[in-house]
């Protein structure tokens, strides 16, 4: 069955290359249902009896002399939960998003296939092969944007990532003479440490941890939204899957701790995560391009996962995995909503948008809920995840990380409102647009569903990650479906929900008893005067450089940008290469002189001897 799943995705990838756009979308959607069923079937392994078909857990596919060993593990299953369900929804969205079939579906299917391969890999070779396949298929999807900066930066950073991961795998193979994950034992010496660090750096590139994030703003803002939703929501989690694998399942965290006795290397990962969350948040609300804003927001939100892995306590890792799950869905919804808005208006810049929400209420609702989860408004699952992370930072007494994380959480309100107000509310600039097509709206609401489930039952999420945590030698938290208890405090969703019900009573009383009439904007603050009379010269929408006062203070600190440091490295390398090129001129005569000189030196040496 498992080999059938992989084979059908591969076959579908080939078929979709040749068929029309609608059929391709339907095939891609249909094909991704089977992995979903398998996902539910495997759930019975971890205590959730949803369906029972008995799909096998492990498989070995011999290809060209090597065999690809695949098996479903608790950790792989948990990460599959946040990658595979995204796919059918995104295909549903693209059903009406694309005007023609030009290579989107085949590569998306390959990306899905390779991500399933990565999370099920039983040995490092299979892992790396699928990792490369994922990098290449996503690179070809980025290439569709035909944007030089996006394509080049994605190519260079992907290559760097592959190089670092390959280096790590080679060192591990050298130490163990085996690539099976179950028999790998990383030694606590300089080589082992280099292997761990290079693997983590390689994964950090994919999961956009600062300062290795430099490709993300270009790629996220130039590629197609359905792909970016899958990239930001699903594929970025693969980096964190790898990090979990190295740090906890292969006990890399312990190796680092024993090697650096006086220094805590995990603390450094947490600090990188915190800085990533903080700086990306500050940059995010200064963006004018909706997609760039979401890209920086993604970098910030993914930083929290690194904080959790860095702190490494049961609280922190549970919070990090919870945040990863939430991020997959809310970020996918946000990118799809951006796509839907652009589909109707053709605009990306927030300063050119405004008032879209009045005409696209369902898109607005989905966005609003995703933003509630992003901004961790209580009782959303986003709050439960952030709460666990905050608790863990206080528990571990990380006095540098904790305030930075908290203030990044507040900063999230700022860029959230930038989207809500700048794009969906404010002046009604697009009075004639229609709601997004039904399939797009349906896709967004399907993706909101998982967030709604874990809004009421955050404990279920902790149940689902239970086995994954055990496999990484991490204790699990004391909880039931509604209440999470830590040594510092407890969080009871049912108390919050009941209290909210009661607190809503006065509001609803006032709401129901008010006699009101709904009035157009022109009728109120403009007192009937129309901006058209002044050739639309009066701006009624405060959207251009919204946070100007604060931008002027903090903007200069981010002025050079990370890319400029990479450019400095590039210039350095170029200078060295130029110097080398002075020797390798490419002229036969010069090489003849070099050879003669070399022979002369050797002869001279012999004579002197």
């Amino acid at each position, binding site marked *: 069955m498992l080999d059938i799943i992989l084979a059908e995705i591969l076959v579908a990838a080939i078929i979709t290359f040749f068929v029309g756009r609608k059929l391709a979308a339907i095939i891609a959607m249909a094909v991704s249902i089977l992995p979903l069923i398998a996902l539910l079937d495997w759930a019975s392994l971890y205590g959730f009896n949803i369906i029972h078909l008995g799909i096998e857990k492990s498989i070995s596919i011999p290809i060209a002399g090597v065999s690809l060993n695949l098996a479903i593990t608790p950790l792989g299953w948990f990460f599959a939960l946040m990658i595979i369900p995204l796919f059918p929804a995104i295909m549903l969205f693209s059903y009406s998003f694309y005007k023609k079939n030009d290579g989107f579906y085949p590569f998306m299917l390959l990306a899905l296939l390779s991500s399933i391969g990565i999370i099920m890999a039983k040995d490092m070779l299979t892992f790396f092969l699928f990792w490369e396949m994922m990098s290449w298929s996503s690179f070809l999807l980025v290439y569709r944007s035909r944007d030089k900066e996006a394509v080049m930066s994605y190519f260079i950073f992907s290559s760097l990532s592959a190089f670092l991961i390959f280096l790590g795998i080679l060192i591990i193979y050298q130490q163990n003479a085996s690539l099976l994950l179950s028999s790998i034992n990383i030694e606590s010496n300089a080589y082992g440490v280099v292997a761990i660090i290079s693997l983590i750096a390689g994964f950090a590139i994919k999961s956009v941890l600062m300062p290795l994030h430099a490709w993300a703003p270009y790629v996220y803002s130039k590629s197609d939204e359905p792909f970016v939703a899958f990239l930001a929501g699903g594929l970025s989690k693969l980096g964190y899957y790898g990090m979990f694998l190295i740090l906890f399942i292969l006990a890399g965290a312990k190796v680092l701790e024993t090697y650096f006795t006086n220094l805590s290397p995990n603390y450094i990962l947490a600090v990188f995560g915190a800085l990533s969350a903080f700086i990306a948040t500050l940059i995010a609300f200064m963006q004018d391009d909706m997609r760039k804003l979401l890209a920086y927001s993604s970098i910030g939100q993914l930083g929290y996962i690194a904080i959790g892995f860095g702190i490494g306590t049961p609280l922190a890792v549970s919070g990090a995995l919870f945040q990863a799950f939430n991020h997959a869905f809310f970020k996918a919804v946000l990118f799809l909503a951006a796509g839907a808005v652009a589909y109707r208006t053709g605009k990306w810049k927030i300063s050119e948008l405004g008032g879209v*929400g*009045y005409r696209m*209420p369902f898109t607005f609702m989905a966005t*609003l809920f995703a933003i509630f989860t992003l*901004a*961790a*408004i*209580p009782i959303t699952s986003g*709050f439960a995840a*952030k*709460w666990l992370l*905050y*608790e863990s930072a*206080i528990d571990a*007494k990380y*006095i540098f990380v904790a*305030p930075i994380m*908290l*203030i990044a959480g*507040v*900063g999230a*309100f*700022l860029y959230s*409102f930038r989207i*809500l*107000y700048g794009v969906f*509310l*404010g*002046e*009604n600039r697009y009075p004639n647009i229609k709601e997004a097509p039904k399939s797009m709206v349906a896709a967004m609401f399907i993706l909101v569903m998982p967030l709604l489930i874990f809004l009421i039952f955050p404990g279920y999420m902790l149940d689902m990650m239970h086995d994954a945590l055990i496999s990484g030698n991490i204790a699990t938290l004391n909880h039931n479906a509604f*209440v999470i208890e830590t040594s*510092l*405090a*407890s969080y*009871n969703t049912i108390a*919050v929900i009941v*209290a*909210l019900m*009661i*607190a*809503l009573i*006065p*509001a609803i009383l*006032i709401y129901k*008893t*008010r*006699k*009101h009439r*709904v*009035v157009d*904007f022109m009728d109120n*603050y403009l007192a009937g005067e129309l901006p058209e009379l002044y050739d639309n010269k009066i701006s009624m*929408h*405060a*959207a251009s450089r*919204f*946070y100007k*006062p604060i931008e*002027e*203070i903090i903007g200069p600190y981010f002025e050079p940008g990370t890319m400029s440091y990479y450019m400095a490295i590039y210039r350095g390398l170029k200078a060295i290469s130029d110097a080398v090129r002075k020797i390798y001129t490419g002229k036969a005569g010069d090489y003849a002189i070099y050879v003669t000189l070399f022979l002369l030196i050797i002869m001279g040496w012999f004579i002197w001897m």
Partner: protein
Amino acid sequence: MDVSAIMIKSAVVIAYAFIGTFIGLLFLGVGRKIVARVHNRVGPPFYQGFIDVAKLLSKKTNISHGWIFDLALLFSISGILLAFAFLPVGGIKLLSTDGDAFLVLYLLAIPALGFALGAGASGNPNAGIGVMRALVMMLSYELPFVITMIALMIYYDTTSIARIVELQSVNGISSWAIFIPPFMLAAAVADMALQGMLMEQPFDIPVAPHEIASGPMVEFGGKYLGTLMLYKAISIVVETTLFVDFFLGGGVIMHGGIVANIANFIVWFVLIFIVFTLSLLINTAFPRFRIEQAFTFYWKYEAILATVALIWVYWMVI
């Protein structure tokens, strides 16, 4: 927990919600009286808050701008009541054992968000600018505030406000946090953050009646404005109580018995009144800052002082 216990708990929480609303409206009137006295005016009567809200809530003409605009009405009052329910008030824990300081911090964002959505849906540019200023203010004052909060959490090794209050009332007044040296500094920082939270001068930038026509509130009228006034009234009580719970032991001076409860309640009331009066006196003494001045003030001077307090506490604990 059985049903009767839940019923009793709900009844207590509802009773406290009413008391909180009453005190908040009283404070609105008394506050105006105090400011008037400083200005050497007579000022309105102390019950002016009640009159205003009753008048606004009984208005017959209510202008709305659609369902997003109505979210302001629904979110603002329910969110602030929810935040109040999760605070220990005068030694009564209410629901504060089911949540913690982070929950309260984020619950305080619900009314702000609803308010911001409503203001955004009104389509008035002044409202947009007002919300921008409110959010920037939030980012500004939250940094020193969360640093002092983390200092408290690390010192008492808990994040639960109920537990912080409990630990501060072990030896009566002498064990209040404000009498521990680093927290004297932290309390001074948090008090200035509170000034921003309460939107009193010099930090009344988001509303700024003379510049942006009351900012976010510009399009609200009738019952909508009445609800927002109720929200403002309760938020005064919530924010001052947060300060009192953190630094002044929640006003708890005695333990056990009904007498202790009444005494604690009175002490809590007096303390929040003092904290509120202090902010009013600062309010009368200062003109308004510009938004960038406020940001610099909080992120430079306040944040440095708060960090000193945090490191001091860390050094004491380790």
